[in-house]
């Protein structure tokens, strides 16, 4: 009897190993079949009192995965895009799977991407950062030069100003990922611009910086000098390793708390001037059109915002009883002070637990335990930051800004939990 069992297990192992090899050779294969991997029921042969194969036989050695990847069973945790949003994938966006993440750190490979001319591929030996204009010395720095300056290591969130932009008129996309996923949070390593500028000197007339990328969109934004000297960084690393190509390898600008478009990737130049440059990105885009037909310009700060990541449309409730509601909150004006959660559409609120570290201009994790007994819920979360700014409702925003702003929708979302545990993005009114 025991012998037979061993034989069966051994056969199972062979099949499994082949799957593993196929899987390891192509990450794409994982991402095409995430549902299949997830929907598999537990195999009774692996459950007590039986011995699973991994308990009896050797697994991969240390020479198999020189750069480790997530478990094949996590193949559903991927960035996703909305094909109909844009004309071309090279000038488009994808979304961070917030619903599958824990803590406050976004893994590098899951940080959402926004490109305007595709991902530039740059040999770090060919990287140059030029600083010109109203400086005492126009200079050029190599990547090695930058790494010899005093170093800074800081966690910051980066949010696209258009995050939630599809939701101004109503609930449109049925997912936490698609409605909140244009945000990520990593630890940056780099040089503070205030240190770098000690080398070039700065003319008194210098009031604005034009930051310019070396990608094929030549991304450019104007940034006031006060912000540059306050906390901006030229970063070459994220979460302990070199920037990913899609995040600006080998170096990018970090503009803490301000809209992601300003964090120029593949940075090649900083020009100092006495006036803003009025680039395409800060005139025709990233301006917030009001009902009057006039548009707000230079709306840089990302206001306080929060989202319940689970339960969410991607994370239905699967059983009655105790659950941990999980979410993320952030503010471009500083630290998160408090997050309230409502399960009845905003009539009554409970304060959630914030998990340390609670950092300035960083994602902050919150949780709240709750019992579910099959009743309908209307879940909402509301962030309050250290300036006492309270995350608004969509109708509060609409009253002042109308529905054509596109950018800076930081309103409270509502997830409807149905009696069957399914979760929907809904609009209350």
């Amino acid at each position, binding site marked *: 009897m025991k012998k037979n069992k061993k034989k069966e297990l051994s056969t199972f192992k062979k099949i499994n190993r082949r799957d593993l090899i196929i899987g390891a050779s192509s990450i794409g294969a994982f991402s095409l079949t995430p549902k299949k991997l997830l929907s598999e029921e537990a195999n009774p042969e692996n459950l007590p009192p039986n011995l699973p194969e991994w308990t009896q036989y050797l697994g991969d050695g240390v020479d198999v995965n020189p750069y480790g990847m997530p478990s094949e069973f996590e193949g559903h945790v991927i960035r*996703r895009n909305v094909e109909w949003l844009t004309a071309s994938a090279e000038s488009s966006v994808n979304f961070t799977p917030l619903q599958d993440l824990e803590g406050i750190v976004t893994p590098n490979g899951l940080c959402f991407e926004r490109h305007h001319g595709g991902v530039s591929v740059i040999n770090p030996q060919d990287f140059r950062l030029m600083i010109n204009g109203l400086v005492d010395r126009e200079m050029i720095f190599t990547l090695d030069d930058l790494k010899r300056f005093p170093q800074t290591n800081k966690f910051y969130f980066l949010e696209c100003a258009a995050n939630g932009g599809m939701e101004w008129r109503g609930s449109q996309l*049925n997912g936490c990922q*698609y409605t909140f996923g244009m945000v990520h949070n990593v630890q940056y390593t780099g040089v503070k611009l205030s240190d770098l500028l000690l*080398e070039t000197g700065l003319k008194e007339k210098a009031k604005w910086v034009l930051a310019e990328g070396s990608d094929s969109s030549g991304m450019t934004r104007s940034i006031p000098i006060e912000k540059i000297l306050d906390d901006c960084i030229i970063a070459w690393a994220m979460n302990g390793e070199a920037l990913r190509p899609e995040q600006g390898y080998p170096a990018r600008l970090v503009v803490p708390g301000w809209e992601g478009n300003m964090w120029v990737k593949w940075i090649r130049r900083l020009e100092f001037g006495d006036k803003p440059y009025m680039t395409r990105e800060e005139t025709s885009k990233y301006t917030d059109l009001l009902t009057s037909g006039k548009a*707000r310009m230079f709306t840089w700060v990302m206001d306080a915002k929060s989202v319940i990541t689970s339960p969410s449309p991607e994370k239905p409730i699967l059983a009655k009883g105790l659950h941990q509601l999980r979410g993320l909150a952030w503010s471009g004006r500083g630290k998160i002070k408090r997050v309230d959660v409502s399960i009845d559409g905003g009539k009554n609120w409970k304060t959630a637990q914030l998990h340390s570290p609670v950092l300035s201009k960083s994602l902050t994790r919150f949780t709240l335990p709750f019992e579910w007994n099959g009743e309908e819920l209307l879940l909402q979360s509301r962030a309050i930051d250290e300036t*006492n700014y*309270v995350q608004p409702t969509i109708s509060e925003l609409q009253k002042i800004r109308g529905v054509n702003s596109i950018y800076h929708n930081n309103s409270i979302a509502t997830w409807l939990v149905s009696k069957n545990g399914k979760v929907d993005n809904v609009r209350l009114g």
Partner: protein
Amino acid sequence: MLGLVRCILGFSLIIFIANTATASDRKFNLGQIASSEEVAGWDIDVRPDGFGAPIGSGTAFSGEEIYAEVCAACHGDFGEGADRWPPLVGGEGSLASHDPEKTTTSYWPFASTIFDYIYRAMPYGEAQSLSYDETYEIVAYLLYMGDIIEEDFVLSDKNIGEIEMPNKDGFLLPDPRPDIMNTHGNPCMTNCQVSTNIIGKARDIDVTPEDE
């Protein structure tokens, strides 16, 4: 910046560096002094006042041909757009409507921005391949289609800073946010008067991508 003004600036800067830049002025003594030639090759931005505009010129009349050749495939023969590629002209008077059309001529406040963007990023996938004259020609053609200049108007580095765009006063500064501070950190916690009627569901709109 290949403009005359910039050449002079670059020249004076060289003298300045030669006279004053010693290692002792620099705190860390890292990096290299940039030559004016190196700066000129990368410094391509153009400001609303025309600062940085490279020497060159073009008319809408001469721009029609180059526009048809390198722009029209995505943006349409008359700037009306094609598929999901954006229209470049039209939309005048639409900004306060329910469906605003934000084009170069209805929305963009400065002609310099059109030049700057086309030169640095267009044609899509062939950035910085147009000559300065070709870029002036294309900008002139767009401005002509938007009834901002005449067909024979010679647009150049000398006058691009003087073009008045229809929506030049359409932008509000400074940022008025936080524009919602009703509760000052003390929002309602219990029995709040809010409507909890469901007026829309993303599921019903049915535009969310599904995993295969």
